[in-house]
């Protein structure tokens, strides 16, 4: 498997005032291979969300290198980064962040229309297929206020996949959901990963991380540990075993 996303010596500093800097990411090196399902864990303030935004180009790193498919992000202009986000990346947020003044269907096709990826009717067909796949086909004409949290997160996933991105980033995608809905979303993401999409999640939730193949643990701006869990097949007993194994590992490491 080739490396899809990699960072080396990634640093991010925030300037808070005169002679007052906060170093949030410290020499972060990571590699994500094509088709992997990776999670980044850590306590609050460890820098995991900052890492996500820096390796996705939503924030500019202070120093270091980030490459997606061999393309150095630091060499790209704002327009080029926007284009990359549109065509090669998908995002799933904790609070979903749909546009309230558009219907559910319009929210999903919006990036597709913008990318002009095969014409609008092709985009419409892809959107319909995605909605059927994730089980929300009947919600197309609904307002965003006419769906549950779990349903809306599925909408977020459809939107993230509309342009067939190389990689999907998730920032606490189940953070605002109850446990049943969270489980369903993780099953869905696993299924998407099995179809070939590379996924990188940020989470503080062991249950979520346990369903990914590899867990990176961050502390004080650095990746301090890594645990490979193997492919998640997707059943209840396996899920519990993986959670236990991960929890034990974290305890052992003193995290």
């Amino acid at each position: 498997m080739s490396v899809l996303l990699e960072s080396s010596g990634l640093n991010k500093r925030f300037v808070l005032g005169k002679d007052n800097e906060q170093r949030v990411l410290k020499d972060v090196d990571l590699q994500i291979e094509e088709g992997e399902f990776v999670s980044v864990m850590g306590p609050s303030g460890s820098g995991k969300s900052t890492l996500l935004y820096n390796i996705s180009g939503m924030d500019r790193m202070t120093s270091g290198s980030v490459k997606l498919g061999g393309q150095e992000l630091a060499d790209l202009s704002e327009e080029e980064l926007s284009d990359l986000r549109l065509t090669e990346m998908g995002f799933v947020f904790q609070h979903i962040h749909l546009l309230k003044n558009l219907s559910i269907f319009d929210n999903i096709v919006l990036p597709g229309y913008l990318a002009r990826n095969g014409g609008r009717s092709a985009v419409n067909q892809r959107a319909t297929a995605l909605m059927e796949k994730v089980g929300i086909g009947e919600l197309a004409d609904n307002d965003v206020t006419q769906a549950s949290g779990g349903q809306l997160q599925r909408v977020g996933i459809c939107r993230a996949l509309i342009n067939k991105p190389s990689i999907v980033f998730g920032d606490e995608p189940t953070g605002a959901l109850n446990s049943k809905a969270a489980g369903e979303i993780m099953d869905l993401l696993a299924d998407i990963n099995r179809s070939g999409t590379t996924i990188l999640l940020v989470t503080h939730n062991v249950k979520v991380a346990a369903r990914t193949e590899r867990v990176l643990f961050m502390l004080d701006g650095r990746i301090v540990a890594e645990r490979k869990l193997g492919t998640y097949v997707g059943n209840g007993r396996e899920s519990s075993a993986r959670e236990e194994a991960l929890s034990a590992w974290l305890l052992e490491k003193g995290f």
Partner: protein
Amino acid sequence: MLVVRILKRDIARKTLVAVVVFAFVALSALLVASGSNLIIELSGALGALFEASKAPHFVQMHAGEIDQAEIETWAGANEMVEEQQTVEMLTVDGSTLYVGDTERPERTTIMDVSFVKQNPRFDFLLDLENQVIDVSPGEIAVPIYYRERDDLRVGDTIRVADGSLDRTFRVAAFVRDAQMNPAIVHSKRFVVHEDDLSALHEHFRETEYLVEFRLRDPGQVSTFAKAYASSGLPKQGTTVDRDLFMTLNGLSDGIVAGVVIVLSLLLIVIAILCLRFTILATVEEDVKEIGVMKAIGVGRRDIGRIYLTKYVLIGALGSLAGYLGSLPVNPLLSSNVMLYMGQAPKGVIGQAVPMLAAGGMGLIAVISCAIILRRLRRITAVEALRSGDGRGPGGHLPVFTLRKSGPLGVNVFLGIRDVLQRWKLFGLLFFVFLFCAFVIIVPVHFLTTIQSPSFISYMGIGRSDIRIDLRQSEDRAQRFERLLAHLESDADVEKYSPLVTSQFTMVGEDGVEETIDIQTGDFSIFPLDYVEGKAPELRDEMALSSLNAREMDKAVGDTVVLIVDGQEREMRVSGIYQDVTNGGRTAKAVLPYNPERVLWQAVSLDVTESSSVDRKVQEYAEAFHPARVTDLEGYLSQTLGNTISQLRTVTLVAVAVGLCVAGLITSLFLTMLISKDGSQIAILRSLGFSLRDVRVQYLSRALLVLGLGIGVGTVFSNTLGQRLVSALWSLMGASQIKFVIDPIRAYVLLPSLLMVAVSVTTLLAIRGIREANIAELIVE
């Protein structure tokens, strides 16, 4: 102290908002202070001029023989009369007059030029210091009209020359003439020494008299006018009174003052709308902070005080800045008043009114804030602390969806859709653009109208290529016949219409006889636009000017009793037309006239297409000397030149104000909107929308609202604007102005200017998005 700290931080955070609101309050205060100052200066200057000149209360013009002893006897016996004098005006033909350093005489002037000596008892002709002019032999005092037209200076020359005479006078002063100052009055008096006047009498025989009276009680002028009309004293000419002098003198500056004040009131309305928008947006943004303050026990009054203090400060500083800004602006606005009427000392009230007016604007802004801030009452601590991102429930429009948006690009669709969904929010911008379009388009329409040849119809004259006016002379009747015979046989003349204005006696409803000036002729040759009804065709029909109709309280279909050939004849009012000349009091009829009572004779004519109007004007001026021959454009520009020039200035100022207001408000609105929409913009950018995409969305919003504002503003300008202008001009006798519209200017050029202003400001305002960090804006 806490309040001061909060204020400083708040203003530092939202500097643009504070600056724009301050600018609007200041601009409104400036305009209202300047407008009210202009009104005070105008009324003061008018009063001072009329007092210094001891202007007459009633004047009867007369061309012909005069018996001064008879007039004095009558005046002496009339208790209403305080003083009487008769002014002799020596008519000097324009073709013999050379103004300034020029080889070209005033051949084509429409002005009746008279030379006079200084008056002995009243109706003094004043210089630019409002002192009674006293010229020495060889010197001359020239009306301000010519000073402005030809940029004359003291020391320049006025030459009077025909075959047998060649006299040059040195300009010693410029004349402020309470009766004849404005350009719309087609008579001008040049002041010379008594000896020079006597010498000129040898060469110029035409004389006109002003039989003038000052009354003990100026309020009795109407009664006096009736008494004079039935007195049998000389009345071969128009009568005018002091009220008309004041109206004509004050009209164009009064209109400017009115426009300025209306502008300032509209600006303060915009300032209030801006304040409302910014306060509501600020309260919405600060709702969590307000909740915290309430939760810890800070009272509603104290919270309100924090916000109100900021706007009290902005209001007070804005008013002060506006008032101070008006001080250098005042001389610019009142320069015309200063020149034509002089400056009157301003009393305490005169100084105080502009200050109070400016302060009033600030007060209006603050009171509006206090009213708007009442909504703070409705925020409870718990609601505020639990509130989300401040956006409303949203909801989508089922009909207008992205899927069904057709050929519209995604960004344009998002922009348009947002305007439709948040139309209340965009209401401020819409209103501002409507106002800007109105403020820009109405003066432009008016300027186009007043410059158009069809404006002649508001002067009670049908549109023709050339107009020939015969001056009063002994052989005028014969000259008129010769003129008509020549025109009849001139192959270059396509059509012509002889018109004779003479005096008739009208019997009022109270049985009192009055004089009325009536023009007779065939009005179908050069037809006029009638406000109501039509031109008189039958011998028992007459048309009235709108001022006459208003004063006589007559409408179409009513009757007026005239004495024709010694008999009473009932005349039916067939139509009402507009006329801003001769005080706006004229009439038309198809009647035989008494040659003894003819005031003036004129001929309107059209030349054939192959003829040159300029050449024919020269030819007729030479052939029919001393007739006054003018082409239509020359007539309009000489009559309205000063008004057009002022209107051009007002129009330029209005265009500048409109563009600045559009730009400032767009800047304020979009800056606040972008701040409000921060998280939405971040979401779009996270999805891959570039900065360019976001700019297109905001530009679409701005241009859509602008387009709607211009569209509705244009409709308002063409309807309400037209009525407003008509209302202003109705004072002069033109009550129904119909705009002549230049479609390129009105529908292409001006909207394009607004679009450029708004687009540039939009692009500048949305630069701020570049600096925003997506990651920081997305709320997690």
